[in-house]
């Protein structure tokens, strides 16, 4: 057999083996319904319907399902990320790979930000009404605003990229003005961090959240503000009151997660426990659960994520320390609340935590009417100050 013929035989054999093996492995091999790295359910098998067959939707859905469950999908996608990183692409999977941080890629769209004023006025009125409602029964409301990592590290963007600082700055300015006009206690942590010199270790390199250090600075500012504005005189934990632990586990940040954790990082998760223990019970969505503040991996080699703080985003969490002499606190907002909660609970009798992206049993107004918490804290990042979805929906019952 000539060399040419041998190459044809081998090619044909490899090609046929590949196209026959892949569907068999996909069908018979290991299956999963979720994608860990994408944090989503994989597409399910579409149901056959007359309409779906007629307009072709069934076949589109079937293709999506097949692609989602294709053999070794995670490994292929991981290899693709590895290749893109090796090719030194500035953006991989919508993440800017800069030398010392992974940052959100925002594209290059520009728009007029004049529309923000109207939205900010509306948001200010909403929070003004909420503030009045809480004040009416002797409570105290405070809004804690935080930068996202991409905003905090705006200077780390390559010069040719758009950090969207212009947009975030305009949102901050409009919202701050509206909060002042409506006399709502508001802490702009971006400004506070700036005054502290914006230390790099306040935010992760590879996650859009702050680190425990950043959260601790926010906690300190918040608690000082509560004591300054009220007579509750809540205890404020200082560094000397806490045992800080840096977990040895590899940390998988939200932005590195999009890169399958392939970006080399020094990020580690730090947590802290009060040196003086206080007993408490915990209920998640009304169900008693283990009284813990952190969901920690079993082994040092296991991946740890930001979800370690309070076990991630939960619709409703109630921490009860059974110290009725202390005030109660309600904290609500997106995932920036989680590290704060691991500190705030210590100074209150009960801590109610709500995340309205998942909690649907009651509106914010109804919840406040029911529990009348002494302190209500809203924690949101500055990019969503003007959003009225999820935790931005200020629905009052009267």
């Amino acid at each position, binding site marked *: 057999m000539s060399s040419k013929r041998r190459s044809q035989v081998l090619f044909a054999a490899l090609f046929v083996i590949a196209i026959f093996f892949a569907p068999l492995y996909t069908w018979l091999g290991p299956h999963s319904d979720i994608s860990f790295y994408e944090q989503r359910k994989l597409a399910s098998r579409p149901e056959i319907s007359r309409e779906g067959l*007629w307009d*072709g939707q069934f076949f589109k859905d079937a*293709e999506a399902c097949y692609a989602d469950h294709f053999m070794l999908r995670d490994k292929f996608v991981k290899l*693709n990320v590895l290749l893109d990183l090796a090719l030194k692409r500035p953006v991989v999977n919508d993440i800017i790979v800069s030398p010392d941080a992974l940052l959100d890629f925002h594209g290059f769209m520009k728009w007029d930000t004049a529309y923000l004023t109207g939205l900010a006025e509306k948001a200010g009125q909403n929070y003004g009404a909420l503030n009045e409602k809480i004040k009416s029964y002797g409570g105290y409301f405070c809004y804690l605003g935080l930068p996202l990592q991409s905003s905090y590290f705006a200077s780390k963007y390559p010069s040719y990229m758009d950090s969207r600082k212009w947009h975030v700055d305009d949102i901050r300015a409009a919202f701050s003005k509206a909060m002042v006009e409506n006399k709502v206690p508001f802490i702009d942590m971006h400004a506070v961090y700036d005054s502290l010199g914006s230390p790099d270790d306040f935010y992760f390199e590879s996650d859009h959240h702050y680190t425990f250090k950043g959260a601790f600075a926010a906690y300190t500012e918040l608690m000082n503000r509560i004591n300054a504005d009220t007579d509750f005189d809540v205890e404020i934990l200082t560094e000397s009151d806490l045992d800080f632990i840096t977990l040895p586990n590899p940390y998988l940040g939200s932005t590195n997660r999009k890169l399958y954790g392939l970006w080399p990082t020094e990020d580690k998760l730090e947590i802290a426990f009060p040196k003086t223990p206080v007993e408490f019970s915990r209920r998640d969505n009304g169900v008693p659960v283990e009284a813990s503040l952190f969901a920690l991996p079993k082994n040092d080699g296991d991946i740890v994520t930001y979800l370690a703080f309070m076990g991630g985003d939960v619709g409703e969490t109630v921490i009860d320390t059974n110290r009725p002499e202390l005030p109660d606190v309600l904290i609500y907002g997106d995932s920036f609340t989680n590290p704060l909660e691991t500190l705030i609970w210590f100074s209150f009798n009960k801590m109610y935590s709500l995340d309205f992206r998942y909690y649907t049993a009651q509106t914010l107004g109804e919840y406040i009417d029911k529990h009348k918490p002494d302190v209500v804290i809203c924690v949101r990042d500055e990019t969503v100050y003007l959003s009225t979805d999820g935790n931005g929906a200020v629905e009052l019952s009267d």
Partner: protein
Amino acid sequence: MVFSSLSFIFLFLPALLAAYFLLGAGSIKIKNLILLVFSIGFYACGGLRFLPALAASVVFNYLFGLLVSNKNPGKTRKTAIFCATAFNLGLLVWFKYIGFFAEIVNSLNIKGLKIPVPTVVLPIGISFYTFQGMSYVFDIYYGNAKAERNIFKVALYILLFPQLVAGPIVRYHTIAEQISCRKETLEGFSQGFMRFLFGLAKKVLLANQLGRIADAAFSAPAAELSAGMAWLGVISYTFQLYFDFSGYSDMAIGMGRAFGFSFPENFNYPYISQSITEFWRRWHMSLSTWFRDYLYIPLGGSRVVLWKQIRNLLVVWTLTGFWHGAAWNFLLWGLFYAVLLIGERYIWGKAVAKLPGFFRHVYALFFICIGWLLFRSGSVQQISAFLSAMFGSGKAGGWDGQATYYLLEFRWELLIALLASLPPKKAVHSFLERREERLWANFLLNWGAPALSLILGFFSVMRLITSSFNPFIYFQF
């Protein structure tokens, strides 16, 4: 269903190969039946609603084929060829152009005349299979082929899945014999699927990636583009179209070869052209030869008086533009080429031919790029704003961060696209052939293409899988 999908490569293809080579072994009739069934299945994956138009095209063209046969009286044949043309054009007009025409009539604001704009869903590949159907009837009428009495063979010619939805437009006389008598060989199989993999790589690794630059440029308000980004967008779109379309043609021709067919070539390195006339001898050749043989030459071609020659060119190129889509920009694009081709033939062609080769390339590529700008733009305003941006009058000036980003992000694709649009393959091949007696050259000649195609195929599949990557910041379980 498209060739560059996982379900095509890893479900449709293995099922077809198994059926074709195991069940159909030894019998051309069974093989043809399997190909026909799979072709219908392939087309049906776009939605069953598109099948009636396709079935009508097959049945009517089959009947017209019988009627235009030279066994019938001349009057019958003439009536039949007229009806066949009217039927096929009617099919195209109804599905592709009716909405466009209705909007034109309504925009004229004629008193009391308001035509409801029908919402007709465009059947996939109708422009291609209608032209194939016409080719079947025309070839019989002009005596280039005999009318086929077996409707399944006509159906297979029109429906044959490799060329059904995006060409090449295979004319009936080219493959009439192959439908009845063909031989699949190991060489054809391996060469065919090697070509399929190269085509897949062109589509997935180059066209899809470069399409992201083009999408960014053409979706942005043109007035806000920097000159750099506008040029980058147009150049990327120029590459995208070539690698998308020629990649698809490679896949079609390759699969055809694996099943024993010999489809005509559709592209011949069009971007090395030194004139627009040459470009159209190298770009979408199956379409240009279709128009040449079935329209331009019957109109008299260039063997008529000057004004008729110009009329013929205008008719052909207006229809070529219109064939690509029911929108003004396609008409403009067709007319643009009509003007350039008329200009090259009668005014500046000789002057261009005297220029050094480099300048002839620049001349041709400049107008090709402008042509693609017309092709892609959604309105005359966008064309105008885009042209302004390209020549530095846009708000963003000469260069901006967006252009830097896209250049850096896709630098590898741009570089490979540039090299792959040139014909280095021939040069490398002849270089190796001259040294065939040397072991390394012999090894590369025999093993280079199979190995490279498999590697590119692997990376293409990797990219296809990656296109389903859809991460969420917050969990969506």
